[in-house]
């Protein structure tokens, strides 16, 4: 939001502003330097990743970490190797991750949007109980649930299948909360009343009227559930035995740990390049959708 929403506000909405009376506050170089340090802290490890993904396995050991290995630029061969190593299993992991994210995070977003709308716009029997249960459950660490979930799923024969990863990611209490606050503000009650008077069914009203208004909230929730699904390491680690079902996170660590096993080949260059590919994909998603999630976040914190 910020830039897009502030500029018109400054020129049109407020006739008398601080800047009209006083000279505009000047930028502070000290402050900029201070925040610049934080930005450096955030970016240096990513730069390290980028630089080191251009090195061969030997080059990693022989060259300085924050500069390129002289003469050898192995980024493209590393990328090629990452995708072909071990029978091209990296592509499989990438595909798995995509499935888990699309089905898991997509499903979680759908359920959260539906539920948040219901909580914000309806009075129904048991609403208080829903609040109490869901909000109490937010404090229960999901990882504390992972082991019992594993034992339960193994009873049903669900372990070592994609469902074992997808089903638990379908619930995002934070997403529900975000959509609930968002729906409460974004959808005027009178509009829903009007639709009801016109005889539109509740589901039709929801999809035709509410969903378009919930856009930024939906994108925000989708991004946060996506990050949660991508961050999911513990759950797939315990649920999946077959490397063919691994998501990227578990797969990359398996490659990393391989060096420590007897007779295992060290493929740190591939771990680094694989990490880079993972990061680039996620960053691309975040940066292209920036406009939406930033306004969604702001709206999520607005009250009144």
């Amino acid at each position, binding site marked *: 939001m910020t830039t897009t929403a502030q500029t018109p506000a400054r020129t049109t909405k407020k006739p008398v502003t601080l800047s009209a009376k006083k000279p505009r*506050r000047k930028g*502070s170089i000290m402050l900029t330097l201070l*925040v610049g340090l934080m930005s450096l802290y955030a970016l240096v490890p990513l730069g390290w990743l980028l630089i080191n993904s251009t090195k061969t396995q030997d080059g990693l050991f022989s060259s300085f970490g924050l500069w390129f290995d002289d003469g050898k630029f192995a980024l493209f061969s590393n990328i090629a190797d990452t995708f072909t190593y071990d029978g091209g299993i990296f592509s499989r992991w990438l595909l798995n991750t995509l499935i888990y994210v699309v089905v898991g995070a997509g499903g979680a977003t759908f359920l959260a949007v539906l539920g948040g709308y219901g909580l914000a716009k309806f009075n129904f*029997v048991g609403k208080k109980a829903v609040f109490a249960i869901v909000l109490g459950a937010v404090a229960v*660490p999901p990882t504390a*649930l992972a082991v019992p979930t594993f034992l339960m799923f193994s009873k049903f024969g669900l372990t070592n299948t994609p469902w074992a990863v997808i089903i638990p990611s379908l619930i995002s209490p934070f997403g529900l909360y975000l959509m609930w606050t968002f729906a409460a503000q974004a*959808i005027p009650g009178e509009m829903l009343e009007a639709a009801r008077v016109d005889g539109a069914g509740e589901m039709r009203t929801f999809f035709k009227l509410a969903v378009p208004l919930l856009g930024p909230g939906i994108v925000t929730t989708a991004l946060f559930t996506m990050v949660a699904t991508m961050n999911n390491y513990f759950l797939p680690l315990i649920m999946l035995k077959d490397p063919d079902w691994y998501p990227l996170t578990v797969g990359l660590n398996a490659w990393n740990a391989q060096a420590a096993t007897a007779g295992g080949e060290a493929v740190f260059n591939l771990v680094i390049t694989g990490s880079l590919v993972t990061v680039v994909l996620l960053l691309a998603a975040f940066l292209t959708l920036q406009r939406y999630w930033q306004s969604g976040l702001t709206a999520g914190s607005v009250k009144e």
Partner: protein
Amino acid sequence: MAVPQLAAPPAASRMGVRRRRPSFKGWQFVGPFMFVFALVFLAPIGYAIYLSLFRNRLIGGNQFVGLDNYQQALTDPQFWSSVGRVGLFLLVQVPIMLFLALLVALALDSGRLYGKSFFRVSIFLPYAVPTVVAALMWGFIYGSQFGLVGNINDALGVSLPDPLKPSLILASIGNITTWEFVGYNMLIFYSALQVVPKSLYESAAIDGAGQWRIIRSIKIPAIRGALVIATIFSIIGSFQLFNEPAILRNLAPNAITSYFTPNFYAYSLTFAGQQFNYSAAVAVVMAVITIIVAYVVQLRGTKELG
């Protein structure tokens, strides 16, 4: 303002709620969520409690033992050492991270920064890096083999302490989580600051209040709700610490024990020790501790609101 606590429905949600007699209509929207929620949240909690009341004995098989597992957990030095470790982590890492996040958010909000949107995005970027990848990456950077620490030692002829040695490993993990989540918290604070009416600052400035005074008396109280939320999420996150120690264990097997964090302990008990029942008891105790701490923070945070 701004989401004062998770438990209170925002005032806005009351607008547009149908005032007629309660019906079941809302369930067609909330129902699907609650159904899956029951399956993946409530059922495992119930199952964990059930499991924790039994014990598998060599003679007699699976037996009901009441609260024996809990008694064992409460007197288990390894369990308490793991709780103490995340407790220490929480007391040191969470304030540092939130302080830095608040500082950057206030700087961004002050309007005195050059290149504001660049900073906002760049500091947020690490949040989009999966924690596993972040742990792998920092692990490499810490490592003695081709790590940056080793490089700097070689290049400058100094000997920085090994970040993976037992006495520093917790701080090193703290650095990774700070790196990952500073930007996220910064954005939460910044978003909350965005909706504070600017007229408040103007009138305060007219009354002669300086920048620090405005920050202390207007901005911080205005975003207290966001601060409480961020604190609660960070506390829950600290208690759940698993990915970073699990990944770094490859590099520092001696520094990271099988009971390094409560989660890691529960994991080791289940998969290395096959002690399902005891592990379930540990998970339940940990969930209760987390809920109590989060609840106390929420209570304190909202009480100070007024």
